[in-house]
């Protein structure tokens, strides 16, 4: 009996583990990626460091106000009140970070987008179609797949798979 119960518990745990989604993260503003990319604004226009540095970077309020400013009247009129508030007060939007890499892992955006010229959508999904703020990482990077996602691509593209290339 105890043995059976133990087995059931394991099965339940396994099903739970593989079905669970990462928790949703609440963002301070509703950001519509689609409406921006439809205007042919490139990813690096806001994620400034995506091609040049390790972290792609989250846009600061100065970046938003390059376009969303009172002098640009048509756009300013359709800008949300909350964003107008941040811009007027020159206060940074407290975006919640979605993607985190473990301390023992090195991931460089520069190597993937700047040098290998991989499209952002390969790892981040169809961001260009998203009309609401991102609340969880793209599914391919969930803990179920984990490192396999990286290794599969590295093997496919014949890139080095040495542990020390990414782990330190």
């Amino acid at each position: 009996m105890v043995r059976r119960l133990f087995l059931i518990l394991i099965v339940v745990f396994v099903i739970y583990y593989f079905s669970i989604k990462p928790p949703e993260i609440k963002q301070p503003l509703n950001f519509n990626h689609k409406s921006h990319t439809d205007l042919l604004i490139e990813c690096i226009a806001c994620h400034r460091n995506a091609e040049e540095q390790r972290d792609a970077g989250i846009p600061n309020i100065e970046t938003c106000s390059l376009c969303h400013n009172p002098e640009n009247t048509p756009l300013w009129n359709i800008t949300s009140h909350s964003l107008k508030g941040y811009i007027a007060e020159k206060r940074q939007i407290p975006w919640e970070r979605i993607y985190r890499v473990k301390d023992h892992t090195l991931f460089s955006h520069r190597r993937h987008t700047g040098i290998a010229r991989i499209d952002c959508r390969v790892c981040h999904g169809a961001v260009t179609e998203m009309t609401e703020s991102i609340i969880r990482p793209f599914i391919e990077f969930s803990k179920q797949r984990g490192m396999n996602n990286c290794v599969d691509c590295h093997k496919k593209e014949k890139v080095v798979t040495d542990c020390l290339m990414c782990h330190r």
Partner: protein
Amino acid sequence: MEISRRGFFKVSAAASFGVGLAHSKEIILPKIDESIERELTNFLPEEWIPSVCGLCRAGCGMLVRKVNGKVTGVKGNRRNEISKGALCPKGFASLQYQFHPQRIYSPLIRKGEGGSPDSFQNIPWSQAFDLILERLIKLRTTNRTHSLIIFSRRKGELEWSMARHFADVYGTPNLIEYDMPNDCLLSEAIYKTSGVKGDLSFDFSSANLIVSFGNDWLQTYRDFVSANRGYALSKTSQPDVRSKIIQIEPRYSITAMKSDRWIRCNPAAEGMAALGVVFYMISSGNYDTEFANDYIENFDDLKESISRINFDRILEITGISEGEFRYLTRELASAKPAIAIGRRTDLFSQGLILLINILTGSFNQLGGAWIIPDDDALEFNKSLDPTARSGLSKVSLSKNSLNMIKVLERIIEKDPYRVEAAFFCNVNPVYNYPGLGVDAIEKIPFSVTFSNFLDETALYSDIVLPITTFFEEYEVKINYSLEANRIISTCKPLILNRDVMSTADIFLTLGKNIKEVQNNFLWDNSKEIYEDYVRKTFDSAPEIRARLEGYNEFEKSARSEGVLIPRREIKIDKLDFRFLKDINLDRVKVNRDTLKLIIYFPSGFNDFEGCQMPYLLDTIGSHLNSVWEFFVEVNPFTAEKYNLKGESIVYIENQDGKKIRARVKIFNGIMDNVIAAPAGLGRSGEFGITKGIGDNPLKLIPKIFSEFVFPVFGFSEVRIINA
């Protein structure tokens, strides 16, 4: 009576000194500093003594290793406020400078043609002073004190203060702060726009974005040890924030290699690139409006004239794409605090780069660019006689110009008067300004060089006085930290050398022996001047007095780690950029077919000094496996076009027919149709084994090229011929 070998030398030296004295008038020499003599003869078996490097103006902290009283090694001083334990290649090689076999240890007089080492003879100090004083007194009696010109590099404050004290009480307005062709980044623009004499200091450590218009700042910044520290801090000091570096230049320099993006730009068009950025920022409204209105005089007028610029011409001149200009503008507008750094080019380019710093709203802010005035904080008490006052009332040769080239040209043209005598205090215009330097020195009837070596300028001087190195003298250094705080550090002699004299001691001796001014020179030697200077510094800074208990603690702290004086706010009214309205793009010619030579300055030869230290000859061509030779970097496409082979020898000739000889090194990091060569070799001074190695590319720079190119530091149109 038995006489030992040592005793014999002592008696002989005393006798020859006595004979020397007997043949001259009585010269009052500085008194022997017995305290330091006692200190240096009472040594431990091994010790590390803090000191300050004197090979350039930066003043990095050093720990000097002494074994049985002899200096045997150096390393960086971690406690030093400026360098925090780092040293540049020159600092590490400084013992080769100190113990160089070609150093001079006796005053020399020239008896023959200038330029030849055979023309010089040793003379005693008293005779050298006799000859100099004879000239100086003659100028004073004929009321022509203003025709003495003194050049000083201001490597040390004691040297500079004494030169200034002497110049003032003697009566000459011509004390010139000697600058190198690659010195001072935007000083002309700052002077023109604000009337402040000074330069910008860049806070590399806290900036979010550093855009460099042609300045290889990790190698050639005024204080590049600090700049490198700032670079490291900017990448690591804040979690999740790494500053971005964008380098705009035709060559893949050290800074370009370490930058996040290298934007290739046609040679000498970096100023135009700055114009393009200003145009884009203003026309798209992507700038800090409030800040710009506060700082810029008649900003609306300036905006209007900039917006009338033909942007297509800028694209043509710079070779930078419109997308890259858009990218630069976006980066500068959204990454406050952001720095725009330039190099010593023409006034327009400097002005535009200064303007970008204001448009980004980072000027005089933490993480931005600070104005540091040429702050002559300390003056010794002095009384001026009528002759001195009359001399000082004359127009200075550096009037309305901060540029050495202008001063040298005025000497040649005798404008506004003839220079009768010159002191070159550890400076070398004959090498730094080829052609112009020799022409100027030959126009001066009497010139004296204070130097450690028989260098190029010394070879053309009438008298050469051997001076101390930083291991042998008292000196005070003032520099600025990355956050523009003042750092005062000092050093004392670590080596006793009675054959040479410090520059401060030389000016003291001259002052003491001119009757009318000697009441202004009451010190006995440079030790007393040092103590006076340090005490005055301590008294004049209430911030230090509150922190450190007394003078002794201050002096000890300045010697061991440097004392930090917090930045003082500089009141600057609106900056006037009206001169930028005169930019005329139609006058800029673009010639795509000609080959262009650009010159760069390796860190080992910073300040153009380095050839004396053989270690440094290994460093300049390390990226091309080249050592101990002069080379020119050529793009593979250019090599094919001009039929050049790697490792072959070529002649590079400018439009005036001047030639230099170099080895071709194929290098992908240089734009097509542009070649690059390092400055610092081709020395004709007496430097032993390093004399005559390579060539000096500065010879090829035309005096005036165009209004958009600074005459020396820019570039030259050349042709290349297989040897």
